[in-house]
């Protein structure tokens, strides 16, 4: 089965939701196809969780329409529940119950047949690397294991749509890899996945990404096209003292933005060919040693930062 088809699974139009004086979501529209892994990327408070909750039918929008798996979520929030699985940032597990008992509980809530449960439990536990811990109490699992158990519980009823709110925050790299392996598998079987993340490397793994800021989508496309669309070009400056380099290049002509990254600085400029020698000269002038300037492909993070800068948005 091919992953992406042209069947629209999640469709939201003109979503608005405010909490008191805070406009958490303002005018969001999304269309997600079957088999996509769609990423929501944004800073804390950008509205990621609110969007998830709106789509899951646990929160009512102030305005706008939502259809998930053919169900009008605003009109019939309960009917969508057997079609989707929503995993909040912290999945609610019963800490006094074992891994197997938690899975059993959630499978019964979704009326999974015993045969299907046995088959899926084994398969999912294996994929999550939790098979040896079935009899351990959920409260005694590590953070990453808890998160994977949450995913297993969320997937026990074969949802058509999976909503994951920052599923890998605080999860160790090995568990994250397991996690993504499971997600890719699900996509193969036609499950549509919407996830929010603060990790840029995860955003790159998505089929499409929406960059959120202050409750609005600033940009939405495939990771590669997002990067191409970034205004300007990116220069990678390696320096002994990246802080000093950052300082020195801040107000150089043609510099649109800077991003300090470990031992280097990503400098976004209007024209790489013209600015590269200029910047080199500027650094030499200020006696900042061992500098090496190369033109590089931007990552999602660069795009994201570029979008958030006022001049970059133009």
């Amino acid at each position, binding site marked *: 089965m091919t992953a992406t088809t042209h069947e629209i699974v999640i469709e939201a139009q003109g979503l608005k939701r405010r909490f008191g004086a805070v406009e958490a979501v303002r005018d969001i529209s999304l269309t997600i196809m079957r088999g996509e892994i769609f990423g929501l990327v944004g800073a804390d408070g950008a509205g990621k969780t609110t969007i998830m909750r709106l789509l899951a039918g*646990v929160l009512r929008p102030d305005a706008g329409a939502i259809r998930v798996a053919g169900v009008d979520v605003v009109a019939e929030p309960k009917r969508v*529940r057997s079609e989707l699985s929503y995993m909040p940032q912290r999945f*609610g597990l*019963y800490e*006094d119950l074992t891994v197997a008992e938690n899975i*059993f509980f959630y499978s019964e*809530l979704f009326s999974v047949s015993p045969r299907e449960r046995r088959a899926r439990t084994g398969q999912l536990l294996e994929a999550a690397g939790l098979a040896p811990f079935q009899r351990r109490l959920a409260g005694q699992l590590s953070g990453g294991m808890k998160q994977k158990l949450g995913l297993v519980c969320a997937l026990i009823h074969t949802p058509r749509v999976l909503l994951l709110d920052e599923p890998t925050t605080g999860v160790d790299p090995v568990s994250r890899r397991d996690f993504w392996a499971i997600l890719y598998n699900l996509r193969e079987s036609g499950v549509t996945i919407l996830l929010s993340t603060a990790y840029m490397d995860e955003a790159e793994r998505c089929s499409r990404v929406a960059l959120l800021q202050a409750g609005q989508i600033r940009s939405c496309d495939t990771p590669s096209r997002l990067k191409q669309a970034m205004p300007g070009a990116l220069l990678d400056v390696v320096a002994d003292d990246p802080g000093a380099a950052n300082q020195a290049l801040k107000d150089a002509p043609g510099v649109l933005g800077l991003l300090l990254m470990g031992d280097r600085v990503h400098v976004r400029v209007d024209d790489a060919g013209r600015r590269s020698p200029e910047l080199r000269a500027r650094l030499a002038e200020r006696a900042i040693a061992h500098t090496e300037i190369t033109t590089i492909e931007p990552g999602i993070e660069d795009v994201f930062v570029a979008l958030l800068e006022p001049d970059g948005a133009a």
Partner: protein
Amino acid sequence: MFERLQVMLMKEFLELRRDRWAMFRLIVPLIIQVIIYGYAATFTVNHVATAVLDLDQSQASRSLISHFVATGRFHLVDVADRQEQITHDINTGRATLAIVIHAGFAQDLNNGRSAPLQVLVDGTNSNTALIALGYVSQIVGQFQAEEMSGVPQARAGATAPAVTASLQERPWFNPGLTDRWFFIPGVIATLTLVQVVNLTSFAVVREREMGTLEQIMVSPIKPVEFILGKTLPFFLIGFADVALVTAVGVLWFQVPFVGNPLIMLLGTSLFLLAALGLGLLLSTFSRTQQQAFALNFFLVNPLFILSGFAFPIAAMPRVLQWLTLVNPLRYFLVVIRAVFLKGVGLDVLWPPLAAMTLLGVGMLTISVLRFRKSLD
């Protein structure tokens, strides 16, 4: 219809079984409290520390003092010879009560004149003081009657013999006026209410805190199934509480149980309905277990005081009397005391039973509505 209720219940009991201290927490405090109430909660006043100042030193005055001591209600701690000593005894708390017999007491009696007797009492504890004074007038009355009968007819002969009305006291339902009989049924009701309201509110708030509530609510489960799953176990625990404390009261403290056990069963069910409703209602007002704890703490005392457990409702200001109308404990106390001691039937007890039903259904409805809203 309720296919998901079964798994909710299974989960609840599994969690309860995993909690190694659950049985301890549920049973031991209950037993300890009923035993403390059974032995310590009494209005009876005994061994009142008493000081005596006998300025008459006659046979009559000594006879009066021995009347006091003989009852066992009063314990002689000081025989004073000056008024200051008496004042000192009361001030320091050495004596609660002081009897002052003035010089000429016997002479007045013999001459058929009224012989004044002074009694000083420490009124700090108004209840004890009042009861002790009651005993004093009883004893003095008795003393007077005996003295009168000993007085030669000749002296009283001048006037017609005094006609006295004699009071025959016969308390119904509790002939010995045993405080314990009154307290133990009340304790059953009070402890059960506190236990069930606590357990229910905490259990629901805990699911909210753990994030499992939101998780359950995005599943196809109905709010009714969730609420039933959360409350049925506590309904059973409440019944076990009532049975346990009743057993201790009847078997250990020998409180009679003369009524119909079926009415007790019905009353307990309706009371538990109201208790569960109250617990759920509290849980809808609490986001964390601390908040639930604070609410419980805040409510326990008013519920207790405004129930008629120890303080008569009729003596309360009107506004507080109205408040007692929404207190399920008030109604169950009427029912449980009636069933234990009076043995009356539904023809008498239907109003409190109906009131508990109304309260229970009302609070459960409000909680379910609030519950639905909080999930929107």
